[in-house]
Structure formats: structure tokens, C-alpha cells
């Protein structure tokens, strides 16, 4: 290999600042998307376990559509195709007036995509409890909503902490796809530094370390939550 190493480039202005700003956008896109994914994913997941055929159908459709289209394609569709389907004025608003169009589109797209995966985890958690507890809840006179609120959800969310950790980690890594629509997050900034200085190996090494740092912190955090909420004797104990 015939490469001219220069680690100093990472600490030179403006390149060091670019990496820090990229780190900030990675966190912003990921957390915004996760908020949407967790909320919507919970709703869709619960819908898929109800007795209503309609709700189950809607939930299944949502999961299959959003889970089966590559994220890269979804990003393109939301950014370039979606505004064209709207009436002219609304489309122009999305393209020009909407605050931070690229960021908003990326967060919504990543959130909707991850929601389909969270929904499946939530459904799996609820189904893992079995029909017995649901029937028992109904038998002592709880309404279906109360059965979810007091019997099924408190247990199922605790069971699915480990798989949710994976989804939460994945969202940080998937946020790099946002660079394809012009969000200058960590990977995009590494590319920018490469194009300005041609020190690509250093820039991407720095980006790698940033991702490892972020995911390590997330993992620690989720470990703590897992320990706090675990029910002694339940399966999530195994991860400890």
C-alpha cells in the first residue's frame, strides 16, 4: 500500500468540527426516529394481537410494506417521489418551506421503517405470554384495554428489552443512510473530509470510533434498564 498517513487532519480546523457536527446529526436523526419508531411500533404491534380482524389487517399490511422495502429505496421515495404525489402547493411546501427538509424526511423515513421492526418485537412479546393470562384477565372482569394495560404490556415490554436493544443500536447505524438525501451526519462528514483532504482512511477510522462509542453507551444504558425492570424468574434474566 502506498498511502500517505496524516492523523493530524482530524484535529485540524474545520475538519474536527465537521466530525463533531456529524456526530450531533447522527444523534438527532436517530433519537427523533426512535421516538417515532417506538410509539408507532407499539401501536402497530398491539394492533396485530387484538381480536379485531380490521386492526390486525392494518397492522400486518403496515409491517409487510415497511419491512420489505430496502431502507435506501424508502429514503429515496420519501425525499423525491412523495412530494410529487401531493398537490402542487403542498409538494412545494415539503420541498422548500418545511423546516430542515432533509433532516425531517430522514427522521420520518427511518422512524416509519424501524416502527415495522419494533412492532414485530412488541407482537412477539405479547404472544410469548400466551392466551392463558389474557383469558384469566378477561375472566376476572377486566375490559380488553385493561387486560393490555395491567396484564400483557407490563410483562411483554420487559421480555423484549434485549431485542429492542438491537433495534435501538441498529437505528444509529441505519441513520447513515440519511446521507443519501443530504443529511451531513457522521458518515457524510467522513466522506466530506476524504474529498477535501484525500485522507479517507483516517476520516473513516474516526467515524468508526464514533459509532462504536455511541453504540457502547446505548448498550450500557439498555443493560441498566434491563437490570432495573427484569422480573425475577422470567426469561430476560438469562441475558444478565
Amino acid at each position: 500500500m502506498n498511502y500517505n498517513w496524516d492523523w493530524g487532519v482530524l484535529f485540524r480546523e474545520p475538519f474536527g468540527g465537521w466530525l463533531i457536527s456529524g456526530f450531533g446529526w447522527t444523534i438527532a436523526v436517530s433519537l427523533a426516529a426512535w421516538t417515532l419508531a417506538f410509539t408507532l411500533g407499539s401501536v402497530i404491534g398491539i394492533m396485530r394481537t387484538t381480536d379485531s380482524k380490521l386492526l390486525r389487517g392494518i397492522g400486518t399490511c403496515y409491517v409487510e410494506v415497511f419491512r420489505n422495502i430496502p431502507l435506501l429505496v424508502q429514503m429515496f421515495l420519501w425525499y423525491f417521489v412523495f412530494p410529487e404525489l401531493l398537490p402542487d402547493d403542498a409538494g412545494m411546501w415539503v420541498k422548500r418551506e418545511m423546516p430542515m427538509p432533509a433532516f425531517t424526511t430522514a427522521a420520518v423515513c427511518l422512524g416509519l421503517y424501524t416502527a415495522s421492526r419494533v412492532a414485530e418485537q412488541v407482537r412477539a412479546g405479547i404472544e410469548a405470554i400466551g392466551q392463558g393470562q389474557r383469558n384469566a384477565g378477561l375472566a376476572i372482569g377486566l375490559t380488553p384495554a385493561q387486560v393490555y394495560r395491567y396484564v400483557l404490556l407490563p410483562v411483554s415490554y420487559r421480555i423484549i428489552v434485549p431485542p429492542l436493544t438491537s433495534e435501538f443500536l441498529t437505528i444509529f447505524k441505519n441513520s447513515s443512510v440519511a446521507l443519501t438525501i443530504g443529511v451531513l451526519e457522521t458518515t457524510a462528514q467522513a466522506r466530506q473530509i476524504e474529498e477535501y483532504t484525500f485522507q479517507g482512511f483516517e476520516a473513516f477510522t474516526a467515524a468508526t470510533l464514533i459509532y462504536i462509542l455511541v453504540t457502547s453507551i446505548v448498550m450500557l444504558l439498555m443493560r441498566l434498564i434491563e437490570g432495573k425492570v427484569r422480573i425475577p424468574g422470567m426469561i430476560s434474566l438469562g441475558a444478565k
Partner: protein
Amino acid sequence: MLSRISLITMGAVLLVAGTATSYADGSPVLDRIKERGSINMGHRESSVPFSYIGDDGKPQGYSIDLCMKVIDAVKAEIGMPDLKINLVPVTSQTRIALMANGTIDLECGSTTHNLTRRKQVDYLPTTFITGTKIASKKGSGITEIEDLEGKTVALSLGTTNEKAIKRVAAQNGINIKTIMVKDHPQGWLALETGRADAYASDHVLLYGLISKSKNPEEFQVTGRFLSYDPYGIMVPKDDSTYRRLGEVTLADLMRSGEAEALYNKWFNPGPTQINMPMSDTLKMAFEIQALPH
């Protein structure tokens, strides 16, 4: 006595020259090409008409034709007429890294020769000259960069054009909104769908994009050159023997007029109807670079 010594010396020199398998004067690239029995040629997939995938699925274009001449010279130099050519697709993001880590032996695309890049790679003589210009919709009232005050321009991430627009805007205090796109097709899409008022890129690429768009008569390329972008074939750094081989080949082509013929084949009007007669600057560049033997 003297003549005997010189005869022996000459014989020894001939013997060494005849049996030498490695280039003692330092050509690691020719050595590895000979050892592998193949040369790795980096090419682009949509740099029309420099280096792009043709209807037959093979890379073709102006840069590819020039590279083939260089490869012919390599074949003659190492005495392997049936040298295998491995085609390696590269992008604007991967080309420098793949050259620096030794994956490709030459890159045939549309790469600007600049001095910062020379820290990692070397270049053969300039074979095309372009610069940053602005494409916009006709009737938008945009001709120069100054007309973009308060408007939105799409820029391709990590190109020389991005740097040029930002530099000129900062120098002249022009307030331009920018949106970043990942490649030329998406930059064009941003302009076509009205997400951006203009798209800035190398003027030759803009003409190429217009010639391929749905309504070519709707768009225009205007303004002065905002940057100077000479294209060159990229070769690995620190191998002057190998680089010289390419320089000799291109100088010969430029002197004999073959280079101009290749230019006309691809640009005037060219298979994609790009219709760009050779500029006086490039003609002059060919003359200056056609160094004598």
C-alpha cells in the same frame, strides 16, 4: 585491452538487460502487473462520455479509449501481448482509496487533477478541460452565480464543484441556500422537481445530463467558469517509470493527432449527441503536452 573490457561490460549490461525480470530502476507497478499477468483498470459506470457502461455491458468512452492505448504500451514494455485486463468499477468516493491501496493500476474516468490529490496519487497529462457552471431552468432568470442570491442550489457531496460554489459565494458575499445530493442523477432530479433552482457541476457533465433529460430544451447551462478542472488518467504515486510510460503514450497521441481524433469520436457530436467541439484551450494543452522524444 580497453576494448576488451568495454566489450565485457557491454555483454554484461546486455545480459542483465535481457534477463532482468524486475525493474531495478523502481517500477513496483510494472513488477506487480507482470507478476499477476493482469492489469487492473478502474472505470466509472455513468461518466458520459468519458467512462460509462455501453449497451453491450462493457465500459466505453473517451477515457477508456485513451487507457487502452496506455495498456498497449504496458503490454509492449513487459513483453506480454496477451496481458489480461481486469475491469474494476469505481465511484468518485472509492477511486482515490482504491488507487492508494494498490487495487487498481490506472483509473479511467473523469477525475480532476489537483495538487491536494497528488499527496495520494499521480496523474498522466491533461486530456480534458472543464470547470464548474450552473444549470437551471430556462426563464428562471439565472445566468451567473450572483443571480442565485436567496435561491437554492443543489451540490453533489464531495465534488470540486461544491468547494467552488461555496468559495465564490463566500468571496462575493452571495447568500445561497445549498442542498446536498449524493450523485449527478439525484442532483438533476432536485432541479427537475423544483427542490432546487439550480444544479452546479462540471459543464461537460451538465451538457451530458441535459442531453439525456426528458425535455432538453427546458434547461440551460450558463455563466462563467467558477473553477478550473483539468481531467487526467490517475496512476499510482511514486512510480516514475510507469508514469513515464503513460506520458510517452499520450504525448505520442497528442503529437500525431490521434488524441484529437479520439476526442472528436466521443464529443463532436459523439454517440450521445453531446456536441462539444474541441476548445482552443484544450487544443493548446495538447500541443504543449506533446513533448518531443
